[in-house]
C-alpha cells in the first residue's frame, strides 16, 4: 500500500470544507414511488463516508442519481459545485466519479492488466482509443495498480478465472485507474470471507488518503473497521448522521433496523 501515492499523480486533496458532492432536495420517483425523497446530503473533499440503511432505503438509487444512471425527478446533484443534470454516465465518470457495483463487474474475457489499461486510458474517445499507443508511464501505472490490488501474479490470466474477492479488488483497482476524485463503492464486501473483507477494508483506507470515498455497506463489522462518519438512509431520506457509535445508539436507527417495536407496544 505504501506505493500508492505514485499511482495517483493527479490526486487533488484541496482545502477541507469544500464539498465534493452535494444533493439538494433530491427526489427520484419511479411511477410515483419515491425511491429518494427530498434528500439533502453533502460530503467534504477527502472524506470517507459510509452510508447504511435497511433494504429499500434507496442507497443504490442514491448512487444511480449521482452517477447519472437515473435522472432526478426533483432537486439536483452537484459534483464539485457543478450541477450534473443532463450529463450522460460517461461524462459524469470523466468529471471524476468512479463507481463500483454491488457484484464485482469486471470484463471477464480480458486479463486484469487489460482491464486496468482500459480504465486508465486518458483519452476515452474513438480516436484516442484507436490510435494512442500506451506509453511507458501508462504501463508503469498499470503495474503499480496491479501491485496495489495484489494481482501481479495473475495479471495475464483472463479475469473470469479470478476468485470473487480478487474480482472485487480488481474492480476497485479499475476505479482508481480512472483517477477519480470521488469513489462510490457499493457493498464491497458482500460475500467475502473475513480475511478478504479485511483486505478490502485496508485497501479502502489506503485509498482514502488521496480520494473522497462514499461506501454503501450492510456489514456492521466492516463499517466499524472503516467508518469515520456514517449516514443512515431510510425511506429515501437521511435519518441521521454522525460517528459510528452515535449512530449505533440512536434510537431511530435501532427502530428502523429492528422494526417499530415501541409503536406496536404503545
Amino acid at each position, binding site marked *: 500500500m505504501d*506505493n500508492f501515492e505514485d499511482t495517483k499523480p493527479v490526486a487533488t486533496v484541496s482545502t477541507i470544507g469544500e464539498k465534493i458532492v452535494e444533493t439538494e432536495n433530491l427526489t427520484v420517483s419511479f411511477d410515483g414511488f419515491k425511491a429518494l425523497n427530498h434528500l439533502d446530503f453533502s460530503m467534504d473533499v477527502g472524506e470517507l463516508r459510509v452510508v447504511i440503511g435497511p433494504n429499500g432505503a434507496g442507497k443504490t438509487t442514491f448512487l444511480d442519481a449521482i*452517477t447519472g*444512471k437515473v435522472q432526478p425527478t426533483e432537486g439536483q446533484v452537484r459534483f464539485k459545485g457543478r450541477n450534473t443534470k443532463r450529463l*450522460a*454516465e*460517461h*461524462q459524469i*465518470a*470523466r468529471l471524476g466519479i*468512479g*463507481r463500483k*457495483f454491488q457484484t464485482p*463487474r*469486471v*470484463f*471477464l*474475457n*480480458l486479463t486484469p492488466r*487489460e482491464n486496468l*489499461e*482500459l*480504465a486508465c*486510458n486518458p483519452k*476515452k*474517445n*474513438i480516436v484516442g*482509443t*484507436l490510435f*494512442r499507443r*500506451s506509453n*511507458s508511464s501508462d*504501463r*508503469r501505472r498499470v*503495474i*503499480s495498480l*496491479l*501491485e496495489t490490488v495484489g494481482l*501481479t*501474479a*495473475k*495479471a*495475464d*490470466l483472463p479475469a473470469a478465472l479470478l476468485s470473487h474477492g480478487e474480482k472485487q479488488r480488481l474492480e476497485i483497482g*479499475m476505479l482508481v485507474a*480512472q483517477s477519480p476524485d470521488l469513489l462510490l463503492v457499493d457493498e464491497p464486501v458482500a460475500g467475502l470471507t473475513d480475511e478478504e473483507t479485511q483486505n478490502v477494508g485496508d485497501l479502502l483506507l489506503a485509498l482514502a488518503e488521496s480520494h473522497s470515498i462514499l461506501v454503501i455497506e450492510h456489514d456492521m463489522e466492516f463499517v466499524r473497521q472503516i467508518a469515520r462518519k456514517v449516514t443512515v438512509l431510510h425511506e429515501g431520506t437521511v435519518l441521521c448522521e454522525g460517528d459510528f457509535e452515535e449512530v449505533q445508539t440512536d434510537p431511530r436507527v435501532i427502530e428502523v433496523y429492528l422494526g417499530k417495536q415501541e409503536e406496536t407496544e404503545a
Partner: protein
Amino acid sequence: MGDEVLPKSRGMKPQQKRLLIEIAVVTAIALIVILFVPPMLVDLGQASRVNQLGRFLALAIVALGIDLIWGYTGLLSLGHGILFALGGYAIGMYLKLQIPPNASIQLPEFMSLYDVKELPGFWKPFYSFPFTLAAVVLLPTLLGGLLGYLVFRNRIKGVYFSILTQAATIVFFNFFNGQQGFFNGTNGLTDFKTINLGRWGTCIQSFYPSIKSWNINSWRLVVAPVCWISKEDINSEQTQFIFYTLTVLFLVAAYALCRWLTSGRFGRLLVAIRDDEPRVRFSGYNPTTFKVVVFAISAGLAGIAGALYTVQTGLISPKAMDIAFSIEMVIWVAVGGRASLSGAVLGAVLVNFAKSFLSEQFAATWLFFQGGLFLLVVLVLPDGLVGWLRSQPIQQIKTFIGIRPQVATYPRIEEDPEIQRERENLES
C-alpha cells in the same frame, strides 16, 4: 517494486514476431489463392469453381463485418443483407448504365418496360465510376451509421436490436421489390454486358497488347489485373479473373483492417462492451459512439462484399435482402467461430461450398442439411470450428509432445501463477 514485474514489457517482442508470422501466412495464402488455385481448378476440369470461390470469398468479407459487430461487440445484426444489397445495386446500376451510344433508348432496358421515360435523378451520378466506387462503400456505411446511431443512442440492445435489424430488411425488401421502374422489382439488376471505365480504362489499355502477346494461359491470367481494358466484356475470362483477384485483395485488406481494429485497445474495448456495457459507461467511455463506428465499418465491408459478389454473379436482386440470407451470414460466422477473424472467413467459404455441393447432390433435401449443420455447431461446437481447433486438438497435441504436462494435482497447483511465483521466490 517494479523490477520483478517490468520485464513483462519485453513481451512486446514475441507479439511483433507473431504479427510478422501472421502477415507472412496471410500473404502466402492470398498468393496461393490468386496464383495457383485457379489454374489448378481449371486443370481439374472444375473451372466453374473458380467463379464460385471468388463469390464465396466476397461473402467472406461480409462475414468479417458480421464478426466485428457480433463476435466482438456482441450485437447480433440480422440486417446485413440490406447493406450488402446496397453495394450490389450501386455497382449494378453503374454496369446497367453502360449503354452503347448507338442504342435507340439510352436507358437500362427494364425501365422502358415499366414506362420510365427518363433516368430517375438519384441514378444519374452512377454514370461516374469514381462516384460508384464511393457509393459502394459510403452508402452502406452512412446507412449503417445512421441506423446504428438511432438504435444505440436509445440504448436498444440484445434481442430488440436483432428484431429491429430484421424489420429493416423487410422494409427494404418490400421497397426494392415494389419499385419496379427504379430497381426492376423482383428480378433486380442483371444481364450486365460491358465494363467500360472510360478515361479510367484507356491509360491502362495501352499496356494490354504487350501482355496479350505472351499467350501463356495461366500466366496471362496472373498479369491480367494490371491491364484492365476499356470496353471489356464483363463476362470474359480476364475480367472475371480481375474480379477474382480484386476480391482476394479486398478480403486481405478487410482482414487486415479487422485485425488492426480488434487487436489493440479498441478491440479490447469492443469485447468489454460485449461483456458489460454499463461498466464501460461508468469507466468514462461512451459505448454508443463505439458501437455506431463499428456498425458503420461493418456496413461498409458488407457494401464492398455486395459489389464484388454482384459483378461475379452478374445479378443483384431483392433476394439479397431476404431475411434468410442475413441469417445465413450469421450462420457462417457461428460455424467458423465467433470472435475469430480466420473463423469468419473459413466459415463463409466452407458453409457456402458445403451448400453448393449439397444442393448439387441432394437438390431436394439440402436445406435440411444446412439446418442440421447449424444445430450441430450450436450444440457441439459453441465456439465454432476455429474455437474448437484452438481449444481441443492443440492442447492435446501439446500434452502429447510434452509441452504442457497433464496436471494431476487438484486444483492444478502447477498452473496457479501465484503459487509458482511463491515457489520461485522461495528458491531464489
